[in-house]
């Protein structure tokens, strides 16, 4: 009797716990946790992203999104290490420079169908210029959520103190050229402060020099990416100009020197307009934002891009794609554009941009942001970019010394990266 009763009780208990456990499993299966790797740890950015995630959760109560900030400098390395370790995120930000690697490898989930199916998404208003790098065989593999033009931030106080002409004055006089910009930078440098800083370049990330050498019509490789053009005349001229600005005129801080524009220590800096958030609130200086100066090849603009892609290997790729569609729909793109200018045509007007970029004046928005996005070329990128970047970097070290032979170094670089470009 006792034995039977024990047996029944055990069976009952098993049944109850079993059903509870199964119920738990069913709930766990429904819950979807998405993870997105990003390279920003900025509180304001994260706050906005979390708001967007909360908005998505309202329609998809079972979906939670977390953001994982990885350091900017080693972002792609950290991301690929996660992928190699079988711990790929569901979604990832991707640099424009490594776009080709990700898009062509098949690592990303195609987004076109999901984006087109999303209500009110209007993918067509994103220009083909903006999506070109993120598209393969007619399919969009990552959405270019940030299309941020490069421009020159100016510290008018330092320039006036050095008795030089400000960029605004030069623009008004039609004299905003690279020669004059370096002249002003050299004048400020003579007064003991820094001249012009090409931000993030640091004599390592040479791709940021595109913001300068594009003025000479130079580019590291041909449009189709197959031929090295670093040894061509425009590039040799541009790099000779930069070399002269660094070592003779001392207008650009030299290798191993750190000067922070946003701390008020340099006359000018070239960077993306999203860096306006770094302008100091205390000890503020009179600043301006102007387009890149004219080079020997005329006026030009450059944009940096960042894409959001969904990892093909993720378990919830479809849901992740739906989240990307939500995050980048017209409404959320408008919110994002205060930090990451959108390539959507409906958002490229001064009224909307003024609302989302209160720091910028109407004139700055029109001349720098709108015209920059409309006419700018995207930073150079290539399949296998990291290897090419490293090869060029280690050779360019020979240029960053006073007695450099610029043309010979560039010839050597082409000899080395030529085979990689053809791959």
């Amino acid at each position: 009797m006792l034995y039977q009763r024990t047996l029944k009780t055990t069976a009952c208990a098993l049944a109850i716990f079993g059903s509870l456990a199964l119920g738990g499993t069913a709930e766990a299966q429904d819950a979807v946790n998405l993870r997105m790797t990003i390279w920003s740890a900025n509180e304001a950015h994260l706050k906005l992203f979390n708001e967007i995630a909360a908005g998505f959760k309202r329609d998809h109560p079972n979906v939670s999104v977390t953001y994982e900030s990885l350091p900017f400098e080693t972002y792609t390395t950290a991301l690929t290490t996660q992928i190699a370790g079988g711990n790929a995120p569901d979604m990832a930000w991707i640099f424009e420079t490594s776009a080709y690697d990700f898009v062509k490898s098949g690592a990303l989930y195609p987004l076109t169908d999901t984006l087109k199916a999303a209500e009110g998404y209007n993918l067509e208003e994103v220009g083909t210029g903006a999506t070109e790098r993120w598209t393969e065989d007619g399919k969009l593999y990552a959405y270019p959520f940030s299309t941020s033009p490069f421009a020159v931030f100016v510290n008018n106080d330092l320039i006036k103190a050095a008795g030089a002409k400000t960029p605004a004055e030069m623009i008004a006089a039609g004299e905003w050229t690279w020669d004059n910009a370096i002249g002003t930078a050299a004048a400020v440098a003579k007064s003991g402060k820094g001249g012009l800083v090409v931000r993030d370049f640091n004599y390592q990330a040479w791709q940021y020099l595109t913001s300068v050498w594009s003025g000479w019509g130079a580019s590291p490789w041909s449009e189709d990416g197959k031929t090295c053009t670093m040894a061509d005349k425009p590039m040799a001229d541009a790099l000779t100009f930069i070399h002269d600005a660094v070592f003779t005129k001392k207008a650009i801080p030299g290798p191993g020197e750190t000067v922070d524009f946003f701390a008020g220590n340099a006359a000018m800096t070239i960077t993306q307009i999203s860096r306006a958030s770094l302008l100091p609130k205390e000890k503020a200086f009179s600043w301006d934002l102007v387009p890149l100066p004219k080079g020997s090849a005329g006026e030009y603009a450059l944009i940096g891009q960042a894409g959001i892609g969904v990892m093909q290997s993720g378990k919830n790729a479809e849901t992740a794609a739906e989240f990307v569609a939500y995050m980048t729909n017209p409404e959320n793109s408008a919110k994002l554009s205060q930090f990451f200018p959108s390539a959507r045509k409906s958002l490229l007007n001064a009224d909307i941009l003024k609302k989302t970029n209160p720091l910028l004046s109407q004139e700055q928005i029109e001349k720098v942001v709108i015209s920059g996005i409309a006419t700018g070329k995207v930073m150079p990128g290539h399949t296998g970019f990291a290897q090419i970047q490293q090869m060029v970097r280690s050779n360019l070290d020979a240029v960053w010394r006073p007695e450099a032979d610029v043309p010979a170094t560039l010839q050597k670089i082409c000899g080395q990266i030529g085979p990689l470009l053809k791959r």
Partner: protein
Amino acid sequence: MAVAQENARPEGRSSSPFWTIARRDSLAGFLFIAPQLIGIVVFVLIPLGLVFWYSLHEWNVLANTFTYTGAQNYRMLMEDENLLEVLGATAIFSAGLVIFNLSLALLLAVLLNQKLAGIAVFRTLFFSPVVVSLVAWTIVWGFLLQKNGGINGMLLTFGIEGPNWLREETTAMISVIVVQVFKNVGLNMILFLAALQGVPKELYEAARIDGAPAFKQFRRITLPLISPTILLTSIITIVGSLQVFAQIAVLTQGGPGLSTTVLVYYLYQQAFQFHFFGYGSTLSILLFAIVAILTFAQWQMRKRIVFYES
């Protein structure tokens, strides 16, 4: 308890018990070393086997392909134009580090092996960098070594214009060596100090009576008696020098040119930056072979250079 039960068995059962004392002892022995053994198998032997396996493949992480390519990565190793330069940089770094580290550690140990008031403070001071976070240490040195950094600022007060430390090939290599030596010299210094304090005082006394000068005492008594420690520290330092990574990544990223691209940093670039995991694995097999050969050679030399070994 178990032993008592075993003894209480009826004598009629003649078959000997499985758990003999010897077996039980060896089981206990294995259980005692199990944590270490499991650690070595899981974290050393299995990864080592896997790295060898990866080195026979082309592994594209992004495309998620893993193709067997046989010895192709090893052929690539033979044909790699950069490899000689990288091995050269590695050799210069290791040699510079070992010579500078051991001689400075020994010098400090001899100086600090005195009975003076407050000597413990100096010992602590010289040892303290060992416990500082490596990356934090390197980042601070990175600031000091910049062209307009602290070191050149100090030199300028004496009217000397310092070099661009991390941007010239020679000074960049010297800088990474010095930063690494200052970080770890305290550890070798403590080992030498312990060894020096183990040298019997009577020997020095006898030598003094015989009229041996201080240098001769050091050469004939101190050095032979601390030679086991010299062997130990040199093995640790050489192996450590071949594995240097953080200092290079933070200070020079392998530049200028390839002048400070040591083998581990090159391996990291190939595997984690260029996504050639197969080739990266091949480079780590090469590194493993170099470390193994050097350690074996040093171990073999102990009979000649270490006083106690016969």
